[in-house]
């Protein structure tokens, strides 16, 4: 009976799909419900940079007329999907939450956008983030701070904070984010939703504004594991426009969703349960691991000795690539350009000085330094070697286990402003997510409990390369056996 009262925007994609198929609701109703929700709560959550209602309503009407004519509908038809603002959307501003791209409207659609349009998904708008995906709290947005819907005084995580918060606050049913060192998994953990970074190469990066090319990967946020699988079905697959996208078959990720982990070998790396891990987080994650064991999985203590070098390594490689990728923002062809420069050098200096925020500048400087003649070997080259060692840790571990389970982040969502003055503390939010990024592995975060403050705690499940199916199956079995995903909003947050 409770379900009957649930408003459309609060349902999952698979629930909406069934209602749409049964003609219980129309696409237009679904869209209107979501946009009403955005109007009702987004002035407090501040997830959206841009809301694209007009185009969305047109898509909804198109879906309805197809329904009318009895035409078959793709799985994500009429599902409201929000997009992180560093995925290029034709005709809609793509700012990466940076001043330097404030006026930028992409002339083309990212491959994932073309895939979503082909699905007739309802694109709700563009979502706030840390500038150029550099940050772990979304406080590095040049435009606004996004709040954690569970407690508005807390950060939603980052860099895909807008994407995580929008799903948590029912301002979108699904969203896309991007993960470079944890930018999907960590905010998913903070906002109590499911977030997945697929294997590097699973999803085309064409149209994803590059932060660190060898690490960036697009992935979905959702309210449950089934929706995550549905979203992956829509966005994964080889793309000839991305040379690093894997030319291999993509399974139907929903087909493998059986609540069965009998005999599944679960690795517990000692290096992820160390000093600095919040006690409540550790307790929840350990409870989740016990739950998996109860469900039939076998537990294996494993060791990943190079884990402690992950953050140092990550913060050389990612800034190095970023310093290169962000060189194109020079005011010459698009985006912000300073007024009245003295000469060319002055134009570069002022345009970039005005356009980039502090954290972006910090990383450009770190990266430029790491790639400079005389320092390249000591920093970049060494970091690449350590990256190989980290990857080998995983290779060895996956000879013994099928998945690795860890906390997603060392703590639940910290308060807004708590870490903004201490970049190093902020960087440590990625300590459990960065290693898998450097190994290119698939990783999922899902809620596994709540802190005493009522903030969600995230469980990270890592899998072998291109074995998202096993990760999803374990996540699904755990979700079916628990009810964390059904808990909606704390009293301090945004009421349903």
């Amino acid at each position, binding site marked *: 009976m409770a379900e009957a009262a649930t408003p459309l925007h609060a349902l999952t994609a698979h629930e909406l799909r069934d209602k749409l198929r049964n003609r219980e609701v129309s696409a237009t109703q679904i869209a209107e419900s979501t946009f009403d929700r955005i109007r009702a709560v987004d002035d407090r959550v501040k997830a959206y940079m841009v809301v694209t209602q007009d185009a969305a309503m047109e898509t909804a009407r198109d879906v309805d007329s197809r329904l009318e004519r009895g035409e078959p509908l793709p799985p994500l038809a009429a599902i409201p999907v929000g997009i992180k603002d560093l995925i290029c959307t034709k005709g809609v501003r793509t700012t990466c939450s940076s001043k330097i791209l404030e006026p930028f409207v*992409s002339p*083309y659609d*990212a491959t994932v956008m073309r895939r979503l349009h082909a699905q007739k998904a309802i694109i709700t708008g563009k979502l706030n983030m840390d500038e150029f995906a550099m940050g772990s709290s979304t406080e590095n947005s040049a435009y606004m701070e996004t709040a954690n819907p569970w407690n508005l005084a807390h950060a939603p995580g980052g860099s895909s904070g807008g994407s995580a918060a929008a799903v948590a606050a029912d301002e979108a049913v699904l969203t896309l984010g991007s993960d470079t060192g944890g930018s999907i998994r960590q905010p998913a953990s903070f906002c109590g939703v499911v977030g997945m970074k697929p294997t590097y190469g699973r999803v085309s990066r064409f149209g994803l*504004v590059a932060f660190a090319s060898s690490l960036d990967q697009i992935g979905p946020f959702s309210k449950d594991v089934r929706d995550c699988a549905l979203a992956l079905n829509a966005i994964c697959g080889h793309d000839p426009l991305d040379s690093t996208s894997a030319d291999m078959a993509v399974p139907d990720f929903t087909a493998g969703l059986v609540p069965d982990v009998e005999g599944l070998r679960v690795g517990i790396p000692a290096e992820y349960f160390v000093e600095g891990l919040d006690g409540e987080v550790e307790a929840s994650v350990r409870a989740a691991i016990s739950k998996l064991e109860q469900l039939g999985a076998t537990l294996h203590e494993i060791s990943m000795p190079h884990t402690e070098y992950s953050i140092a390594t990550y913060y050389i490689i990612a800034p190095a690539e970023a*310093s*290169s990728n962000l*060189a194109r923002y020079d005011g*010459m062809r698009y985006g912000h350009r300073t007024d009245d420069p003295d000469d060319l050098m002055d134009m570069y200096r002022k345009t970039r000085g005005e356009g980039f925020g502090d954290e972006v500048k910090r990383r450009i400087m770190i990266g430029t330094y790491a790639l400079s003649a005389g320092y*390249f070997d000591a920093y970049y080259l060494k970091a690449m070697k350590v990256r190989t060692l980290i990857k080998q840790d995983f290779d060895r571990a996956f000879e013994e286990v099928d998945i690795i389970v860890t906390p997603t982040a060392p703590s639940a969502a910290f308060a807004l402003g708590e870490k903004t003055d201490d970049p190093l503390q902020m960087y440590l939010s990625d300590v459990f997510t960065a290693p898998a990024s450097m190994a290119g592995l698939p990783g999922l975060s899902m809620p596994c409990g709540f802190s005493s403050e009522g903030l969600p705690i995230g469980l990270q499940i890592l899998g072998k390369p291109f074995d998202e199916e096993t990760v999803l199956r374990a996540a699904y079995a755990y979700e079916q056996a628990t009810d964390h995903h059904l808990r909606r909003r704390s009293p301090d947050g945004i009421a349903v």
Partner: protein
Amino acid sequence: MAYEVVIGLEIHAELSTVGKLFTWTANRFGGEPNSRIDPITLGMPGVLPVLNRTAVDYTMRAALAMDCDVQPFSKFDRKHYFYPDLPKGYQISQKDLPIALDGHVDFDVNGATRRCRLTRIHLEEDAGKSIHAEGRDDVSWVDYNRSCVPLIEIVGEPDLRSPEEAIAYWRAVKEILEFAGVSDCNMEEGSFRCDANISLMPEGSDQFGTRAELKNMNSFRYVHQALEFEIRRQTQILDAGGKVDQETRLFDVDAGTTRAMRNKEEASDYRYFPEPDLVPLDIDDAWIQAVRDSLPELPRARRQRLVSEMGVPEQTAAVLTGTRALTDFFEAAAEGCGDAVLAANWVQGDLLGYMRDAGREIEDSPVSAPELAELLTLLKDDTISGRIAKTVLEEMIATGKSAKTIVEEKGLVQVTDTSAIDEWVRQVIEDNPGPAEDYRGGTAKALGFLVGQVMKLSRGKANPQLVNQALRAALE
């Protein structure tokens, strides 16, 4: 003191692929500024490069044509510097693992064959073009049409010992690239240009001196001038006991001199690192063999064959192998008429003479090789005379009609009917009693005048040899 000159060239050639190096947009010269662009060419946010495999084929062709070792594993790197014509703030190039290593090019200077060793050949993207307004320093424009065009850099060893050798080597490379069909090497359009390193050392020494690098020259004449100037400049410095600075210099076309680049123009640290958006390039033996099989005969080999197998004089062969299109044209004409020497003379003489006057290349010839062969066949089987053939060729060029059509329409078939010739001979002797007497009196050259008169009377159609015979018979 006497010095030995040491020169090494880095040659850049744009590849004539249909598309650009990392995108589908047409790779063609010119067009309205910024008409051959797309999000990838412009380095818009979010775009990714996808390697054009044909550009790799072409690089391999160039490499194999210059006896390089194609590498089984190569990769691309980013080379960073800020300049408005470089859209991404980096150029995608190849640093430590290029597509090809260790080759050589043979070339002829003053009758001797010399060899320049090659260090490497790598593939990279070209930049756009900055356009500075004359007389204004407050505004410049950038045309990105050339941006992302595939470019190979051919790095030669410092094996060249004079500006003449440098030019001869550069010409040889140009010929090879044209014959291999990988670049049109159009110097005016900037698709073929070079940097030169030059240093002096005391004659007999084997210790190279400090070199200067001369940047971005795109004509044989400029390279020659720039090198000559540098030799004078460095000689003066060394003679005065000074030291040559290792620096990059620009050739000033108007002054005919070189000048050091300002520091600002010279990027000091390119911060190379492996291009993460492209996967490394694996080239297996089968691919190399396929490219090797597709390689046409190269200019030196072809020139030798023209001389030794087809009997074409050496000088003519050198002209006819100037470009691949010209050699192809000649060979087609030679095969069509079955007489290589005849075809060589006509292609080199009349046809090229016309093309030169018209300022056109053989590719634009109004007469095709089979059409020329048809004309030469008519000449060979005595259907028309050599003189008529020349007028027929002019007519072909002017009207585009075939040789046969022109000969038929104008009734130019050579008259071999002796009774008609005898009649013309009779009339000419009658009309020119003086010269006829002179000939009979022993003035042999009078015969030439009489032959000319007969030819004139026949409007060029009479077979000159028969006329000659008939005149002698009639007069003796």
